[in-house]
């Protein structure tokens, strides 16, 4: 029996939850297994903002005692998790990756987090992130860069940098991220894990640090599509604390994981998402298409409207809304921001209100045009980014004159989807010859996460990229 088969931390979320429920492992054994890996990996990765070993083990013991009495709190009873440090958890410090909120103690608990707690999860700590979730690389001038477990010289992607790194290294079974311009899909792609950017409004944002009220989405990063399906099903749905959360019924996402690809049509764009790709990303895209075909999907070409306009509109909306949220601190504490985040927040100050509102007014027609272009397909397949994870050194551009160009290139394929507010599932689909993961995104119709889950789960039944585990060198 190899090491992997006996280490609970290496199981999927769904599998470990079942193992605890079936008393094959205690919550303490599982939690200790994760803590052991955290102790090994944290010095290399810097993925955790706070490690709460003592309280996690105490909570695990309480979960075990409850289960011994026949009291299960839910489908995730006793499962230890850590999340991006922007989800308010009453009584806990929530830094938002910033110096400004270094000592901020939340007085409420975010709805998404509370729903996972209600399902029985145990808190093992909090995860690193880009300052105020405003950056796609994973650099953080206050708490240091987060490192990619596949090669620690490379970035994780951001802004859910700790979530991507920790899930990939099997330090947590899953983690909440947030996606405003690509911040779930980017770390999922660069770190080789599965990430679901939900439809705008599918999961409540109450108690989640805001960046852009029109674009922010809450979603999971996990090892498998099935894990993401379980978590999204628990979190999604109406919330009296967030009236922008949709009242649409929440489908049975776990049932969707059992569907096949037969009879499905998957669109592949003829331009933009296939232009200027790194050769290895292009190769993985071709291989992914071949696998989907082999499993019964029909691949069709789709001609999309000009995606550069969507990217531009996204930037106008994101920059303006972020600047508005931060205006008080921009006046009172500009010196407490990192250089790049300060520059990007200042960008929003210079966008006239009419330009912002034009970008908001165009959102409906832009979405209608996308839907018309993809009519007849069940989802669109595209790379998450044109390249695999860059090195930390080459992407550490701070507030230099080239900074925005670097950010634009990394987020080229994610921002249009944020502007449209559509769901997008990033799945591991291959590796470069140098051993870096490559992911692809499946983009669906609004509130049709179930279709993406169906396709992604079917893909993972026939591939093993999501099961590969980085080794501590």
């Amino acid at each position, binding site marked *: 029996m190899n090491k992997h088969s006996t280490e609970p931390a290496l199981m999927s979320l769904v599998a470990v939850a079942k193992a605890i429920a079936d008393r094959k492992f205690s919550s303490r054994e599982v939690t200790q297994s994760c803590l052991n890996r955290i102790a090994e990996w944290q010095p290399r990765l810097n993925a955790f903002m706070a490690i709460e070993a003592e309280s996690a083990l105490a909570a695990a013991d309480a979960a075990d005692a409850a289960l011994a009495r026949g009291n299960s709190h839910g489908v995730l009873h006793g499962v230890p998790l850590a999340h991006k440090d922007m989800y308010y958890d009453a009584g806990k410090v929530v830094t938002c990756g910033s110096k400004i909120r270094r000592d901020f103690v939340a007085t409420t608990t975010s709805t998404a987090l509370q729903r996972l707690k209600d399902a029985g999860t145990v808190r093992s700590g909090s995860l690193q992130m880009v300052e105020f979730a405003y950056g796609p690389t994973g650099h953080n001038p206050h708490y240091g860069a987060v490192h990619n477990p596949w090669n620690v010289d490379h970035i994780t992607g951001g802004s859910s940098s700790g979530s991507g790194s920790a899930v990939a290294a099997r330090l947590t079974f899953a983690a909440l991220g947030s996606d405003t311009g690509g911040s779930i899909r980017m770390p999922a792609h660069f770190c080789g894990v599965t990430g679901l950017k939900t*439809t*705008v*409004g599918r999961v409540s944002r109450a108690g989640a640090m805001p960046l852009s009220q029109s674009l922010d989405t809450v979603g999971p990063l996990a090892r498998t599509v099935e894990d993401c399906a379980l978590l999204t099903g628990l979190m999604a749905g109406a919330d009296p604390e967030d009236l922008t959360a*949709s009242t*649409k019924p929440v489908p049975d996402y776990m049932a969707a994981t059992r569907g096949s690809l037969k009879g499905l*049509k998957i669109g592949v764009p003829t331009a933009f998402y296939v232009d200027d790709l790194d050769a290895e990303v292009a190769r993985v895209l071709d291989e992914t298409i071949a696998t989907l075909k082999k499993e019964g999907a029909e691949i069709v070409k789709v001609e999309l409207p*000009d995606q*550069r*306009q969507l*990217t*531009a*509109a996204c*930037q*106008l909306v994101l*920059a303006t809304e972020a600047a508005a949220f931060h*205006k008080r601190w*921009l*006046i009172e504490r500009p010196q407490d921001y990192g250089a790049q985040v300060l*520059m*990007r927040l*200042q*960008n929003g*100050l*210079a*966008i*006239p209100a009419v*330009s912002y*509102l*034009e*970008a*908001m*007014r*165009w*959102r*409906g*027609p832009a*979405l*209608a045009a996308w*839907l018309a272009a993809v*009519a*007849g*397909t*069940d989802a669109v397949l595209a790379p998450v980014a044109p390249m695999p994870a860059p090195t930390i050194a080459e992407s550490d551009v701070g*507030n230099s*004159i080239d*900074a*925005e160009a670097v950010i*634009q290139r990394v987020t080229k394929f994610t921002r249009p989807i944020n502007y449209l*507010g559509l769901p997008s599932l990033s799945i591991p689909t291959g590796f470069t010859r140098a051993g870096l993961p490559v992911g692809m995104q499946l983009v669906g*119709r*609004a*509130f049709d996460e179930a279709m993406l889950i169906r396709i992604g789960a079917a893909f993972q039944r026939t591939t093993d990229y999501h099961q590969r585990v980085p080794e501590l060198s």
Partner: protein
Amino acid sequence: MTKPGPREVMAITTTAGVPVDNEAASRIANSIGPAFDGFAAIAGTLPFDLEPASYLLVQNAEVSK
């Protein structure tokens, strides 16, 4: 749509109550310029009756394959 240059950026940020210096204004103008360029074909062309809330109508419409 005309993208703001450094001088316009200084004026707008001052009006917004968060003035920036010359260097920052140049950096901001350089950063946001591509967004204005990219949106130029749309800016000033939208029909009168188009509400931002039209997005929710499209998003929530039942769309079949």
